[in-house]
């Protein structure tokens, strides 16, 4: 089967993406897995714009409403024992109804805890990461927030990362 990347998009947005010019990463980076899966520590990263209501403020959706060409470049941390009830969502470009029912559709914390207890993976790292997917300008992601998240991962001795841009 070939996945149709545009199946669920309105035609105008699909055409915009298809005609957009992008710069290819060259060479494409590649880090072989250093250990067997059952010894690896995993971090999870999504761009679903969710946060833990008990721990951190939501993304700045109000500024995006005032400045539609701006997206909040910061990130939120979610602990491995975060509960579904604590999840807040501020993405203005998708319907947040389903992620408020089940965070695992974008950030599979509970599925990874199951894999940890089954011994399939070594462990889920203490911190998972949520970014805001709407980023007309990715400079701050590249220069500030991406490296900050990577530094926490290194501190927490992460071996592998599952990325789920939503």
């Amino acid at each position, binding site marked *: *089967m*070939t*996945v*149709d*990347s*545009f*199946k*669920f*998009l*309105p035609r105008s947005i699909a055409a915009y*993406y*298809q005609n957009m010019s*992008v*710069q*290819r*990463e*060259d*060479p*494409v*980076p*590649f*880090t*072989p*897995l*250093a250990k*067997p*899966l059952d010894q690896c520590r995993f971090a999870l990263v*999504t761009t679903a714009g969710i946060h833990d209501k008990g721990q951190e403020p939501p993304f700045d959706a109000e500024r*995006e*409403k005032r*400045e*539609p060409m701006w997206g909040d470049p910061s990130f939120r941390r979610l602990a491995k024992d975060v509960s579904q009830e604590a999840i807040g969502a501020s*993405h*203005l*470009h*998708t*319907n*947040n109804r*389903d*992620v408020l*029912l*089940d965070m*695992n*559709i*974008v950030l*599979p914390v509970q*599925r990874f805890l*199951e*894999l940890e207890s089954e011994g399939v*993976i070594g462990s889920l790292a203490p911190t998972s990461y949520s970014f805001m997917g*709407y980023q007309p300008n990715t400079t701050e992601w590249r220069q500030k927030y991406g490296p900050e998240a*990577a530094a926490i991962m290194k501190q927490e001795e*992460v071996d*592998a*990362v*599952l*990325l*789920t*841009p*939503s």
Partner: protein
Amino acid sequence: MSTVLVTLMPFWSERLGVPRTVGVEFPYGHLLGQPGDRDTQMGVIRAALKLLTEATGPGEVRELDYVWPQETSEAKRDWQPPEPSPIIQMMIDQRRGQRKGAG
């Protein structure tokens, strides 16, 4: 650190160059399936873990054959926000303004 990406748009992986990609034909905001569908969520994750261990070089894209259970037209509406996003609203307003100007 090794990475694996799960995406609804493998189109971008092919164009941008990504270390490892698993592609699924799901609507936006539903990377791993529907809420409460543990089996599909776990199936996609296991495919990502398999690629993580099996890939020998950069750029591999594996597409999974899950079929989204909703009608396409319904799914197309369902993932979208209840109100247009600020950028879409701005474009709608601009088009209205242009039409007024032209009229």
